[in-house]
């Protein structure tokens, strides 16, 4: 069964067709890279899937369920979680509180308007073990805004990982990271459970080619081709598309 099906997705900003008929199907458990030159509509595509932008036309299905035009919070509850290109953290709060809020978001305790936070032990423990998993256990008490850049990227991904997502949308997780930080992030992503379906938008082609099972190339708002890293790497069309914008 496909985890994610996108059919005929269109989005126009004024005269600009940012998304021009995207069709995609991602099988459950696949790690799918989305690459393409700047302005190909990658982030817009993610924003539509995760509910932040309504499409002009087309449909998005998650495990057979139509999620087009559902609000972002609802989509998150269906197991579709995303990270942001520019870190979107709770800067003034501790790493632990950031993670706790991420875990609590799908826990029934989020409706508790009277009890103490400490009473919900499972949420706290899940937040701490998530910190352990992503290598932030020694930063629990630090304010998110004070973390180093690479650690912010780790926390950014960690927030999307809370409570077992089924589909993970990662928007340039390594953007702006140093080579060392990139390696840490790559390890983190590689070690994710195989049953999580991942869609990865990334400019670092090494990362995409090493991590992904298949890659879709997005050019001018539609899918130019989908194939294994070898197929995409060998494609003259893809090279032309990249070179084409390089000249523009």
């Amino acid at each position, binding site marked *: 069964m496909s985890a994610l099906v996108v059919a005929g997705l269109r989005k126009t900003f004024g005269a600009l067709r940012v998304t021009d008929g995207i069709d995609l199907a991602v099988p459950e458990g696949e790690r799918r890279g989305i690459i393409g030159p700047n302005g190909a509509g990658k982030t817009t595509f993610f924003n539509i899937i995760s509910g932040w932008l309504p499409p002009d036309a087309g449909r998005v299905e998650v495990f057979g369920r139509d999620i087009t035009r559902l609000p*972002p919070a609802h989509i998150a509850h269906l197991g579709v979680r995303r990270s*942001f290109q520019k870190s*979107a953290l709770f800067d*003034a709060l501790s790493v632990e509180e950031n993670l706790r809020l991420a875990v*609590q978001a799908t826990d029934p305790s989020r409706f508790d308007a009277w009890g103490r*936070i400490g009473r919900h032990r499972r949420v706290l423990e899940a937040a701490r073990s998530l910190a352990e998993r992503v290598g932030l256990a020694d930063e629990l008490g630090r304010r998110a805004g004070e973390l180093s850049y690479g650690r912010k990227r780790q926390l950014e991904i960690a927030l999307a990982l809370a409570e077992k997502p089924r589909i993970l949308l990662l928007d340039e997780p390594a953007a702006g990271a140093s080579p060392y930080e990139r390696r840490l992030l790559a390890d983190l992503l590689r070690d994710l459970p195989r049953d999580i379906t991942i869609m990865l938008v990334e400019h670092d082609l090494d990362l995409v080619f090493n991590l992904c099972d298949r890659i879709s190339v997005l050019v001018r708002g539609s899918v130019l081709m989908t194939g294994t890293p070898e197929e995409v790497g060998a494609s003259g069309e893809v090279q032309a598309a990249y070179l084409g914008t390089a000249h523009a």
Partner: protein
Amino acid sequence: MTAGSAEGRVPPVPASARSERLPVVAALAVALALLAALPFVASDYLVVLGTEILILALFAVSTNLLLGYMGYVSLGQAAYFGFGAYGLAALTLLWEWPTVPAMLVTLAGSAVFAIALGSLCLRTSGVRFLLITLAFSQMLYAVLVRTPQMGGDNGIVGIPRPELDAWGIDLWATVPFYYYVLVLFGLTLLILYRFIKSPFGSVIVAVRENEMRARALGYEVWANKLACLTVAGMAAALAGMLQAQNLSFASPELASWRVSAEVLLMVIIGGWRSFLGPAIGALVFIAIREGLSVVTEHYLLFFGLFFMAAVALFREGVSGGLDAVLAKVRRR
């Protein structure tokens, strides 16, 4: 557009600093004990002032749920203050209800009022939120001025206090009324504290820090925001009822933008980064008013100067300044 904009927001709060502070519940207990002792050591004049400080402190702490915790600056909190005063006035004086049921119904009415207003205002944020809350509170003010049954411009006198004669308590006397206000103050602050520190309330801080991320995680933030606004509105309405009883008078002035602005000043002077900071702001506000109004009627001018000094000297208000001093002392 997707929120998280810094426009009109309050600077973020260090969580580490917050959690390291004295447990607020303990501080509140000590403060309440000291406040309970006040009538034994102070003159009637100071007890009357203390009563008003408690009422305004309750109003300021509730306003800070929006300003400090949620990061939304409302310039319309006087609408709830005035709603409380006039709700009580209308039920008791026009329809001759007994006082306590009238207070309970006014409180319930303020929740409905806050939910209705909040559903409209919370479609905006930043400066637009400030302006729309101002607009709605001015609408209420205009209605009150044009309601002759309620005394119109002149207001309405004779707001009753609860009858506790059966228990030998006369709330028209200064000290019993002070204790009555103190009990409601302590109870309400405890409820506000439990609410804002609960799992549900913690999402309100997440909204201030990054509303977009809170929604991406799966929070339907509108419910948390509306609940916060409603709880704050109900507490402000209670403060308004107490103020009307204190003055035994309700006038449209209670719902005016000036009252909204003054409570914001109290919050900022006292410190929006702590739960009890705004209460200190109310104390400072009344102290300056009383101290200076003997000398000059332009006390607000001096209050403004003090405000600037407080903001310049301690960026986190008086309570933040005290924290900084305490931290230095402890380090030695």
